[in-house]
């Protein structure tokens, strides 16, 4: 009896150790960046900074916001995120609503098209050639239009619309509402959680996207993640003033400041939004 109790205690200790380890591993990299971004360059070069900042200074933040290319990239990202999410949601809502009615003639066929395209896609080159032959290269639309409908999010919305009781719609039809009226006045007000989930997934996608900026855009249109990637890759200097190059320690605190600033909106909103994220993955896990 005693041995089982010791074993049980040991097990509990191990469980909590694993959890504390997980917390540390998830949080330390971010805290490290924050510490680097507000430490003095001298402390960084002497390897004195890990989690606790030393010689606290906000110089790096003051500096990055004077760089016109960082400022512009940050603004671009806000634009891509807001415009991309708005276009995406609008298109997905008007697509998902008819598709949530399996009795509508043709909707099953369209559904099959949607599902098939999740498993077999055009691939990188055909997509690239399509965007360039539509004349979208070097326009901001190249960041928005090709990604407006995500099949996973679409199915999530369809499943949600299907779960709304049909009686509501029937009552509305008797009251003389047309389909657009039903969608706007009955379905959408009931779909807050689903729209928040899909909207958040979409916004995170646009916020984090850099690759399509790399292949489609010119540098004045770059999003902030691509700006950061170019600093990390050493293909561009942090700012016009940072002549010393990205290997100097001044650049380390500045690079960290860029990392913190470009991740901040997600980190700040995260605690408020995370319950929607979870809801989404669970609805999505139910087969579509």
């Amino acid at each position: 009896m005693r041995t089982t109790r010791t074993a049980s205690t040991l097990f509990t200790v191990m469980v909590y150790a694993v959890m504390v380890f997980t917390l540390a591993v998830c949080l330390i990299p971010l805290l490290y960046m924050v510490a680097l971004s507000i430490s003095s360059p001298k402390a960084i070069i002497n390897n004195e900074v890990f989690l606790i900042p030393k010689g606290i200074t906000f110089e790096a933040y003051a500096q990055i916001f004077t760089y016109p290319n960082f400022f512009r990239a940050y603004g671009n990202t806000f634009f891509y995120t807001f415009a991309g999410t708005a276009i995406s949601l609008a298109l997905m809502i008007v697509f998902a609503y008819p598709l949530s009615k399996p009795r509508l003639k043709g909707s099953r066929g369209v559904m099959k098209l949607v599902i098939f395209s999740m498993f077999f896609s055009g691939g990188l080159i055909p997509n690239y050639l399509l965007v360039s032959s539509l004349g979208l290269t070097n326009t901001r639309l190249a960041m928005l239009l090709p990604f407006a409908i995500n099949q996973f999010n679409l199915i999530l919305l369809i499943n949600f619309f299907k779960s709304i009781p049909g009686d509501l719609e029937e009552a509305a039809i008797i009251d003389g509402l047309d389909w657009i009226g039903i969608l706007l006045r009955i379905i959408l007000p009931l779909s807050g959680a689903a729209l928040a989930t899909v909207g958040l997934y979409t916004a995170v996608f646009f916020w984090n996207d850099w690759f399509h900026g790399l292949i489609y855009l010119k540098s004045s249109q770059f999003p902030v993640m691509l700006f950061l990637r170019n600093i990390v890759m050493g293909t561009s200097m942090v700012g016009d003033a940072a002549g010393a190059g990205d290997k100097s320690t001044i650049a380390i605190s500045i690079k960290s400041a860029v990392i913190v600033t470009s991740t901040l909106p997600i980190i700040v909103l995260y605690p408020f939004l995370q319950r929607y994220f979870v809801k989404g993955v669970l609805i999505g896990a139910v087969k579509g």
Partner: protein
Amino acid sequence: MGERMRGIDQKTKAQLYVIRYWQLYVMMALPLLYFLLFKYVPMFGNVLAFRRYRPGMGPFGTEWVGLTYFKRFWSDPAFWRAFRNTLVLSLINLVVNFPIPIIFAILLNEVRIIPFKRMVQTVSYMPRFISTVVVIAILGELLSPSTGIFNILRQQLLDKAPIYFINEEKYFRLIYILIDTWQFTGWTAIIYLAAITAIPPDLYEAATIDGASRFQQIFYVTIPSIMPTIMVMLILNIGRLLSLGFEKVLLLYTPDNSMVSDIIDTLVYRTGLANQNYSYATAIGLFSGIIGIILVSSSNALSRRLTGEGVY
């Protein structure tokens, strides 16, 4: 007479149908057009793999060249290297990162202090929302040869020369897999946690009465109960075997580690977009797309046979 009546009947029925539902079709028109343009046109664009591309002559190429491009990559060592790298990296990733979220979910479920459990869970899936660029940038600082904490510790504690981890061939796979663990463990665990939550509590009560320890309860109640979920997830993962995190690999790619870090997707990117061999790159992409769809449909068929239910 009856025939005619039915004819009219059907006609008015069709008219009624249109009158009743036309708005739904109008709603669908724009997104459907969008869908055909941005998803299906590129799909047919794959025909470029069999046709020669000439600049300015449209995205579908000019004349048919049959399997020329396929034969070319078939005898290209760079292709086979990328193919092998893709398979090796995916398989190691599956072996390492498939069980970790399951173990994490089971252990998290053993945490009895609910606020702590909730906090760990919330924090654990945050990495999923952080941009891959940011993840690689942070890693670059942590592993930096001059100021990175790993190299400082190595130097101070072991008195060893710093290593440029990110640039070294032998650390590439380890780094890729650890990043994947960091990004997705908490997120994937959500699905297993949901499955664990759905286990009826009386199973545990019965096990306790029978004198099962917590350890035994995990092995005889929890794991068997979530086995269907584990199987479905395994099949999904096998179906996605060829689709690695392309952006991650592209960001970690350096000429020095290219022997192991060049995967099919990066090869397509380099030959296609950097060197503008559009047809050749499309052929490679199409080949891996076809293998992908074979993997998905066969793992789905396997699932139907084993669990009586397909994933799709």
